[in-house]
């Protein structure tokens, strides 16, 4: 049942990415080019996505477990630290270079050819790198992971 939910969700997600045009890096970069030919499409996508998800959070408050019996997400963390901001700034800079974000890259692979695959490989390498190359301010125990103390 959980598998079915995952498949349906993935299908709808991919369809939405494609329909919205967000698999097209040129359109995404157009949104960030506020000093050029600005393309507001990304704002419509974000606004549209916010509606069902806000409803889902309202429904979540009335549920104790997910529909398949899994634990639901805990209340959002309020932690805003250097790690979050440095990471997000880096992500933004990288997003501004090629116009591809992690949500778009998988659907874009089906139509974007080798440049998208190359981006995906570099992104996965970056993710793996971030797991070993932690920022120094992180406590050593947390960095070593649970069970390794």
């Amino acid at each position, binding site marked *: 049942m959980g598998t079915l939910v995952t498949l349906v969700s993935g299908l709808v997600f991919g369809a*939405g990415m494609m329909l919205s045009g967000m698999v097209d890096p040129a359109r995404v970069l157009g949104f960030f080019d506020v000093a050029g030919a600005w393309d507001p499409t990304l704002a419509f996508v974000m606004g549209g996505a916010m509606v069902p998800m806000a409803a889902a959070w309202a429904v979540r408050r009335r549920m104790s477990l997910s529909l398949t019996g899994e634990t639901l997400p805990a209340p959002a963390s309020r932690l805003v630290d250097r790690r979050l901001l440095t990471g997000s700034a880096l992500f933004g800079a990288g997003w501004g270079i090629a116009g591809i974000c992690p949500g778009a890259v998988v659907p874009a692979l089906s139509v974007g050819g080798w440049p998208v695959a190359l981006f995906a490989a570099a992104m996965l390498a970056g993710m793996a790198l971030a797991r070993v190359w932690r920022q120094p301010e992180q406590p050593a125990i947390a960095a070593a992971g649970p069970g390794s103390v």
Partner: protein
Amino acid sequence: MSLEAAWVNGLLGGLLIGSAAAIYMLGNGRIAGMSGILQKAFTDFSTDSGRHSALFMVAAFCSAGTIGLWLMPVSITVTHSVAALLVSGLTVGVGVAWGNGCTSGHGVCGLSRLSVRSLAATLTFMGGAAVAVFVIRHMLGWTL
């Protein structure tokens, strides 16, 4: 496609993306953050959720391919150089891992629950992208 048609498609596509995130959260209790899903499937083998993550991506890949090639032929052309793609990919990978999320996790799932942490992240990466585009296109005048 005219700009206005693109806005309508953007809104409809956004509704689908939000619905997918809602189905995933209410159904499986998981946040549909694509950077987390990618990390669980490819770089983090300490949890048992890798199977779900991998399935999510396969489904996203297949549906996008189908829609793109059959229902509304989408052709995207990525004109960036190899170097630009590599630098961008690496930066995005490290960034979303440190920042614990991207446009889907912080942007869609986080903002819709009024998370302060996600708002800080979203403003930072949106601002970062705008600065990057401004510097590259208007200050340096580069075509990557």
